[in-house]
């Protein structure tokens, strides 16, 4: 019987029983006649079995925390753009404003001569006072988040104590 070409790419489909009858028969005939392919098929099967029986396990995950985190991410995507605008730039605006105050006071004091200890203290007070106002605004914005039930999402597991991860 004339040897058909080595059916390389069909071997795995053959081993998995995925080939149509014509192809299956043709590969089976080839394997009966070609020891090289027969050995390859045997090795492939063993490797597939070995891989299937020794799957590495990823590091453990706390599934409750995973779902809570997913809930937060999804909520953040659904939040209208103006909420994102309010949330994200505030810490940035805070630092920028504080840096601005420092710069202005620094330049002023530089012009009016070297700072004494009293000047330093008053500079610190001014900066902290300006920050306090901004911080109060920030706290209000943080509280608005609670309206969006983020906290509920964080505590999904407590709401459904029977659930397992």
């Amino acid at each position, binding site marked *: 019987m004339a040897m058909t070409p080595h059916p390389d790419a069909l071997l795995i489909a053959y081993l998995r029983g995925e080939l149509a009858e014509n192809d299956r028969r043709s590969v089976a005939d080839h394997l009966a006649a070609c020891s090289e392919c027969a050995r390859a098929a045997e090795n492939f099967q063993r490797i597939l079995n070995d891989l299937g029986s020794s799957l590495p396990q990823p590091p453990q995950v706390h599934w409750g925390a995973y*779902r809570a985190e997913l809930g937060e991410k999804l909520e953040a995507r659904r939040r209208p753009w103006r909420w994102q605008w309010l949330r994200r730039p505030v810490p940035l605006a805070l630092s920028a404003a504080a840096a601005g105050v420092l710069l202005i006071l620094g330049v002023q004091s530089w012009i009016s001569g070297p700072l004494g200890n009293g000047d330093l203290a008053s500079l610190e007070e001014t900066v902290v006072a300006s920050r306090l106002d901004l911080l109060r605004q920030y706290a209000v914005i943080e509280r608005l988040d609670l309206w969006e039930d983020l906290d509920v999402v964080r505590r999904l597991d407590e709401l459904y104590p029977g659930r397992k991860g």
Partner: protein
Amino acid sequence: MELSDESLCERVAGRDEAAFNLLVERYQQRAYRLAWSILRDAEEARDLSQEAFIRLYQAAGSFGGRARFSTWFYRILVNLCLDHRRKHRWWRRVVAPVHSEDEAEGSVVERLPAPAQDPLEELGRGRVMSRLWAAVDGLSHQQRAALLLQVQEGLPTAEIALVLKCSEATVRVHLHRALTALRKTLGGA
């Protein structure tokens, strides 16, 4: 009666939160494990599997039920992971230059010399297995993804092709190359 994944997905399209939560619970472990198998990084696997669920939520309306839900979802997940690896390839090249590329002619494993003796006799099974999995890590992204979808998720070739957005013939070539490389690693003639 338990609702099928497909009907749950239809409900997610109607913004049914409970249906979404149920799908997440059904698929979270598989999604994370598959992402980890492709990325080999727990943080990235967590992040990208969650991203796949977000995409599922956003795109549930386009599911259409033409494929199985699992195939459709794996397609989202696996392509997120493969895109991520492609984007970070330049960095991996710097920190881990041994990893092979999709386009490379043959993987690192294929270039390794075959050991002289049958390692099954030479080493214990555990060592052979870790060597085998190290070789899997050295395969190209596409080859590894095809192989993992087969041995880990048990997907038939036709579904692997749908997930990887390629033809069945291409999947067969990926799998054949992958197994040929692994066989060489184990010293198969």
